C-alpha cells in the first residue's frame, strides 16, 4: 500500500489564492463554451475574484512559511508579496481590457479565462521551491500569454508577435530545462534546499557542468525578463500584443520571473560564489544601456515602452548583481523596485490603450499624443507622473526605487554599476520627457478621441496614487513605505536563512 500525500485543510488554506485563480479560470472557460459575450455580471465577478485573491494573501500574511507538499512550494512572505503584485497587475490589465476588447471586437470569456490561468501560473512560479514546480509555473504562465499575444487573430502584427514569442520562448524554456536536467544529474535533487546543500558540500559547484547548467538557467530567465542579449523579441511582441496584454507582460510576467530568478539564485547559486555577480553585472550594463539608447529613436509608443521595459530590467539586474549573504538590502530593493515599476507601467499602458484605435495610424505614434495634455487634463497629469516616475525624478516611486537599488549596489561594492545606472537614468529622461513635450506643447492636427472609460480611469487613479504614495506616503494613512520596505526585508531575510 502506498501512503497518501500529506494534504489537509491547513495546506488547502495555504493554497487558497492559487485555487481561487484556477477555479476562476475554469469558470470563465465554461462561460466561454456556453455563451460568447462578457456581460456586466461577469466583469464584476472577475474583479471580485481577483479581490478575493488579494484578501487571501492578506489572511495568509503571517503564515509560517515552510515548504509544503514535500517541498514542492513555499507560501512565505516573499511568495505572498509577489502573489499580491501579480494580482494587482492582472487586475490592472482586466480593468483596461473591457473597453479595449469592445472596440477591437475581441470580447470573449476565454480571454479572461486565459488571464486567470496566466496569473495562476505566476503564483505557482513565485511560490516554487522545486525546479519542477518552477518549470511548470513558467510554462503555465508562458503558454497562456502566448495565446493572449496572438489573440487578435486577423491582425498581421499579432500573428508575427505570437509566432516570434512562442518560438523564441520555447527555445528559452528548452535551455532552461537542459540546465535543470544537468543540475538534477549532478545533485540528484530538484529541491532548492537540496541543491543548495549538495552544491556547497561536495564540491559540485566547481564542476564545469554545474557552471554550464547555471548559465543555461540564467539564459532561460534572461529571456523572460527581457535582458540583453535575449531581448530581440521584446519590441515586436509588445507592439503586436493587445495593449492590456502588453501591460501584463511588462509588469506581472516580469515581476513573477524576477521573483523566481531571485529566489533560485539567492538560495542555490549565489552563495559563496561571486562569479555570477560578475556575469549578471555585465548583463545589467548591456541591458540598460541598449534599452535606453534604442528607446531614444522610437516613434511608436508601444515600442518605446518595450525598450523602456528592457532598460528597467537592466536596473533590476543591478540589484541582483549586488546580492550578498551579509545584507538583505539589495534583494529587498528589487522587491520595492518591482512594485513601483509595476504601478507606473500599468498606468502608462492603460493610457496607451485608451488612445489606441483600430484603424488608420492606430493611435500609437507618439506624434498623435499632441494636444492630449490640455484637452484631457487628468490624463495629461497622470501621464506626466508616470513618465517622471519611469525616468526616476523625485518625489515619485520611480526615484526611490532607483535610489534603493543604486545605494545597495554601492554598499555591495559595485560603485561602477551605480554610476552607469545613474548615467542611464539621465539618458532616459530624454525620451520620457519627449512624450510630455508632445502632449503639452504641440497642437494636435486630428481631433483626439480618447476612450477613457471607468476602468481606465480607476487604473490611472490607483497607479497615480500608488506612485505618489510609494514616494512619500505617510505611515499614518496606510502601511507606509517604511513598512513595505520592512516587509521586503523580512521576506528576503527568510530566503537567505533557509539557504543557510
Amino acid at each position, binding site marked *: 500500500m502506498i501512503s497518501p500525500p500529506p494534504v489537509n485543510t491547513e495546506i488547502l488554506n495555504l493554497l487558497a489564492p492559487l485555487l481561487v485563480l484556477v477555479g476562476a479560470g475554469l469558470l470563465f472557460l465554461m462561460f466561454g463554451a456556453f455563451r460568447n459575450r462578457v456581460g456586466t455580471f461577469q466583469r464584476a465577478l472577475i474583479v471580485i475574484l481577483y479581490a478575493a485573491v488579494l484578501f487571501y494573501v492578506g489572511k495568509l500574511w503571517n503564515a509560517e512559511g515552510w515548504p509544503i507538499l514535500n517541498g514542492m512550494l513555499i507560501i512565505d512572505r516573499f511568495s505572498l508579496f509577489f502573489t499580491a503584485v501579480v494580482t494587482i497587475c492582472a487586475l490592472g490589465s482586466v480593468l483596461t481590457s473591457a473597453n479595449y476588447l469592445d472596440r477591437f471586437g475581441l470580447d470573449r470569456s476565454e480571454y479572461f479565462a486565459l488571464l486567470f490561468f496566466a496569473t495562476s501560473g505566476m503564483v505557482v512560479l513565485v511560490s516554487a521551491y522545486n525546479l519542477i514546480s518552477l518549470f511548470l*509555473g513558467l510554462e503555465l504562465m508562458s503558454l497562456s500569454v502566448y495565446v493572449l499575444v496572438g489573440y487578435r487573430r486577423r491582425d498581421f502584427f499579432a500573428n508575427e508577435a505570437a509566432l516570434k514569442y512562442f518560438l523564441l520562448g520555447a527555445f528559452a524554456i528548452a535551455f532552461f530545462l537542459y540546465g535543470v536536467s544537468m543540475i538534477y544529474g*549532478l545533485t*540528484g535533487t530538484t529541491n532548492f534546499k537540496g541543491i543548495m546543500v549538495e552544491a556547497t558540500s*561536495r564540491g559540485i559547484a*566547481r564542476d564545469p557542468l554545474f557552471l554550464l547548467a547555471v548559465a543555461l538557467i540564467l539564459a532561460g530567465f534572461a529571456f523572460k525578463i527581457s535582458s540583453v542579449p535575449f531581448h530581440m523579441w521584446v519590441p515586436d511582441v509588445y507592439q503586436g500584443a493587445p495593449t492590456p496584454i502588453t501591460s501584463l507582460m511588462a509588469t506581472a510576467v516580469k515581476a513573477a520571473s524576477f521573483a523566481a530568478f531571485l529566489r533560485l539564485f539567492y538560495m542555490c547559486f549565489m552563495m559563496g560564489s561571486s562569479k555570477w555577480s560578475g556575469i549578471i553585472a555585465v548583463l545589467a550594463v548591456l541591458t540598460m544601456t541598449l534599452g535606453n539608447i534604442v528607446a531614444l529613436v522610437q516613434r511608436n509608443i508601444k515600442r518605446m515602452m518595450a525598450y523602456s521595459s528592457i532598460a528597467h530590467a537592466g536596473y533590476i539586474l543591478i540589484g541582483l548583481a549586488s546580492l550578498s549573504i551579509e545584507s538583505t538590502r539589495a534583494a529587498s530593493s528589487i522587491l520595492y523596485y518591482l512594485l513601483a515599476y509595476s504601478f507606473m507601467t500599468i498606468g502608462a499602458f492603460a493610457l496607451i490603450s485608451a488612445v489606441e484605435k483600430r484603424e488608420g495610424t492606430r493611435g500609437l505614434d507618439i506624434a498623435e499624443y499632441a494636444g492630449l495634455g490640455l484637452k484631457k487634463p487628468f490624463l495629461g497629469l497622470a501621464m506626466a507622473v508616470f513618465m517622471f516616475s519611469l525616468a526616476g525624478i523625485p518625489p515619485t516611486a520611480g526615484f526611490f526605487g532607483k535610489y534603493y537599488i543604486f545605494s545597495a549596489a554601492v554598499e555591495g561594492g559595485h560603485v561602477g554599476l551605480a554610476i552607469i545606472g545613474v548615467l542611464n537614468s539621465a539618458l532616459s529622461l530624454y525620451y520620457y520627457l519627449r512624450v510630455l513635450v508632445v502632449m503639452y506643447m504641440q497642437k494636435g492636427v486630428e481631433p483626439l478621441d480618447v476612450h477613457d472609460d471607468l476602468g481606465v480611469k480607476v487604473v490611472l487613479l490607483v497607479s497615480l496614487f500608488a506612485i505618489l504614495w510609494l514616494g512619500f506616503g505617510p505611515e499614518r494613512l496606510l502601511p507606509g513605505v517604511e513598512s513595505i520596505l520592512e516587509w521586503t526585508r523580512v521576506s528576503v531575510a527568510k530566503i537567505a536563512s533557509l539557504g543557510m
Partner: protein
Amino acid sequence: MEAVAFYIIAAIAVFGALLMITRRNPLAGAFSLVVSLIALAGIYAMLRAELIFILQILVYAGAIMVLVIFTIMLLNLREEELEEPPAGKIKTLIILAAVAFGCYGIIKVLSGAPDEVPRVPENFGSVEKVGELMLTSYLYPFEIISVVLLVAIVGVVLLAKKVI
C-alpha cells in the same frame, strides 16, 4: 558490453540528428529525426527508464512526428521552393561543438571536481515507481500539468480554428 551498446545507440542518435539538419527535403529530415528519437528511446531503455522509453516511442516518434509530417504536407513545398542547406555553416557548427567538448574535458580535469554522481534508487524509472512518485511526492506538479494541458487545448481552439 553496456558501454559498447551505449556508444552504438548514441552514434545513431547523433547521426540521425545530423541527417535531419542537412537534408534538403523536409520529409527526409523528418524521418531522420525519427531515427534519432528512436535511438534516444534506446538510451532511455539502457537507463532502465521504462516509462520514458515507452513514451518516447509512443508520443515523440509517434504522435509528434505525425504532427510534424502533417505540417510538412500542409505547406507542401515544391522542389524549387526549397533552400540549399548551408553546408559551410554546419561544418563550422560541428567543429565548434568538438571544441566545446574539448574545453569541457580540460576544465573538468583541471578543476578537480568529483566524478561521482548520486546513484538512483532501485527500480527507478519503472512504471510503478514513477506512478508512485507522481501521485504522492509530486502531487502538486501533477495537478498543475492538467491545467497546463487545458491551456494548450484552449490555445489550439483559439488560434487554429477557423471560426470561433
